[in-house]
């Protein structure tokens, strides 16, 4: 496996991690705000706060890891994407900033404050929408080179149906992933009302999700034929992903094995996300930049990979500890504050 492939695989894996944990996080923020504003917080807020509180900073790190890593492994992305993403990137940053701070303001300073909860619930939902623009741009067709500098055509970007389908998909995915996870989490806390409500949301969002995803594949067939035909070559991955989606919905419908349902969901998104990524290969930005042209020097690549392995050796046990204490600890999850060694 070439260094380029190792680099992009590691980054793609982290981006996938961000998609999952970020979706749970942003969706939970939205459901929390929704329940506070509609006066249903007695059902949901406790469950959501219990999960969100210790992990929110971890979520943000996945994102930072991705954009720092991509500039490390592929410095030319800084030039291409840095130049064209000034406006969308800045808007994404502002949303991230509002989301992170207001989350902290609400949960550490003013619990139950409607305004704060609304701020972070709404900004959390817009973050995936604004970040997903990057995927749209990477498909090509919106960037031209003027006087040796890349320029983004905003009009074309914002009138393209592809852009809006990806936006819809990102929002649907956030709410769906989050709802499925929280169904499971609420079930573990033994809170039947919350479980039932989240289950309803999960099933409700499963259909828009699959419609938006199919719509994107259809639109790519006009927008980027090369990418589309490579996706068709990977039809079995998308097919498998679809079967896993059916599995999740089936288990939710039957009110059984919510943990397995969430596991299937992760599998579904992993397959689709990697099938999309593999078919995007070798382009980072159609048609200007591939992972081979934009790659860093060998010395840097090797030192980044070593740093990554050492970093992981440090992080995985720590993450395990975090999960053990908060996600899988029966006493904590059920809200008992009994002491333990």
């Amino acid at each position, binding site marked *: 496996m070439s260094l380029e492939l190792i680099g992009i695989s590691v980054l793609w894996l982290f981006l996938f991690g961000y998609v999952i944990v970020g979706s749970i996080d942003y969706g939970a923020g939205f459901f929390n705000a929704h329940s506070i504003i509609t006066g249903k917080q007695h059902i949901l807020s406790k469950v959501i706060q219990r999960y969100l509180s210790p992990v929110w900073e971890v979520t943000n790190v996945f994102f930072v890891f991705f954009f720092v*890593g991509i500039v490390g492994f592929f*410095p030319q992305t*800084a030039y291409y994407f*840095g*130049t064209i993403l000034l406006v969308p990137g800045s808007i994404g940053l502002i949303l991230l900033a509002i989301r992170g*701070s207001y989350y902290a303001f609400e949960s550490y300073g003013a619990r139950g404050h409607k305004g704060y909860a609304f701020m972070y619930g709404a900004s959390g939902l817009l973050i995936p929408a604004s970040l997903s623009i990057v995927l749209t741009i990477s498909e090509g067709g919106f960037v031209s080179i003027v006087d040796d500098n890349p320029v983004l055509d905003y009009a074309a970007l914002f009138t393209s149906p592809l852009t809006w389908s990806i936006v819809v998909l990102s929002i649907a995915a956030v709410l769906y992933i989050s709802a499925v996870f929280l169904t499971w989490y609420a079930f573990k806390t033994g809170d039947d009302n919350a479980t039932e409500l989240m289950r309803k949301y999960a099933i409700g969002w499963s259909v828009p999700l699959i419609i938006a995803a199919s719509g994107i594949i259809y639109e790519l067939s006009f927008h980027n034929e090369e990418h589309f035909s490579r996706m068709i070559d990977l039809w079995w991955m998308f097919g498998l992903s679809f079967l896993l989606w059916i599995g999740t919905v089936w288990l939710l419908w039957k009110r059984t094995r919510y943990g397995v349902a969430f596991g299937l969901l992760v599998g579904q998104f992993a397959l689709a996300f990697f099938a999309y990524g593999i078919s995007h290969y070798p382009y980072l930005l159609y048609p200007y930049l591939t992972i081979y042209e934009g790659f860093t020097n060998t010395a840097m690549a090797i030192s980044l990979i070593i*740093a990554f392995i050492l*970093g992981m050796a440090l992080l995985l046990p720590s993450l395990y500890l975090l999960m053990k204490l908060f996600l899988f600890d029966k006493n904590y999850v059920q809200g008992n504050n009994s002491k333990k060694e």
Partner: protein
Amino acid sequence: MFDDPVYASRLLTLLTLSFHIIYATIGVGVPLMIMIAQWIGIKKNDMHYIMMARRWAKGFVVTVAVGVVTGTAIGLQLSLLWPQFMELAGNIIALPLFMEVFAFFFEAIFLGIYLYTWDRFDNPKKHFLLLIPVAIGAGMSAFFITAVNSFMNSPAGFDIVNGQLVNANPIAAMFNPSMPTKVTHVLSTAYMTVAFMLAAIAAYRLIKGSNHVYHKKALYMTMKIGLVFAIATALLGDLSGKYLAEYQPEKLAAAEWHFETENEAPLIMFGVVDENQEISYAIEIPLMLSILAHGYPSAEVTGLNEFPEEEQPPLIIHYYFAIMVTIGVFMIGLSLVYWFGIRRGWPFVRAQWYRWLIVLGGPLSFLAIEAGWWLAERGRQPWILRGIMTVDQAATTSDYVGHMFILFAGLYLVLGIGTVVVLRKIFKNDPVEKELEKLQGGEPS
């Protein structure tokens, strides 16, 4: 002026860094303070110190949140505003940038665990142990990010052949000549500033009528810590001067308004300069610049006129230098007198006016941090990567940077006000007296 992407990019970077550095300093410094307080609390079995750790941690999470998001902002803005620079620098200095993420990740995980496990361990020492990775992670974050900044000042770890950067050596780039002085200076000033910030809070509570021994203990402890790090900062500052004289003489010369190369150079503080390089109204300390630059009074110090005009940093950095040094010296004096005063029982260190000075010391220390960074960054002009790339060459070519400046200015305003409002709310509803009662059923103060 906003129409010029270079100028607007510089302004926006100035804005983001100046805002972020407040939270970053708190983020680096507070974990150590919490650690010291909790350790003393466990050792002396004194509830007050445990409470200090607890209350500082409570406020800390709010500032961490804002620090995380503004840190994310500056991280991404590097690519958005300086794409050419990041493309070049990514090849050489991406390693510490990458490792910083891990350091922060590590810190974030253990901070999360620490905050939510106050009552989960029977043995309080186990809970204390969680602080070690938090403080180390915070310190390592500062180390890696400062290494990147020092690379911009003294690029190393590559060769230039036909205008291309080749033979990249990421380790040598990270351990570039200015790294040791910069990293240690950043760390010690962070600890010093945070100690004085916490001292200012304690002094303010005492002024406002709370006579609780908790605040007195907090004040005495933080002033002592502040003193130690203020002295360390002064010593490290001396080393920074020697580094500059060797590797960035133009920065030292501009900061000092030292125009002609000469021996036995005096240190000039404040004053004004005219277009003929005539300085008036300045405080002059004989021989001091030679000592700062080379360690002995007769040393020759290179003057600014040795450098081509287009490579001279702006003269305003002289004031940043003067502000930084003056505040540093003031804080050493203030904390030294306080420490002596408490030990010897001098009454005036407990007087209202002295406490007001300590309160003032908090914001002043932050001002010194800001001045230090303005000195570091503007003192590097016109370069973004000294000797290799100027800021004009590095800046984005895209429009709307000025608009982004306005958006971010609004954001920082909202976040700044939000921080203050929320912190006030947290501590107003839960004063020390009330929290102590809750914890132990009321002990006379």
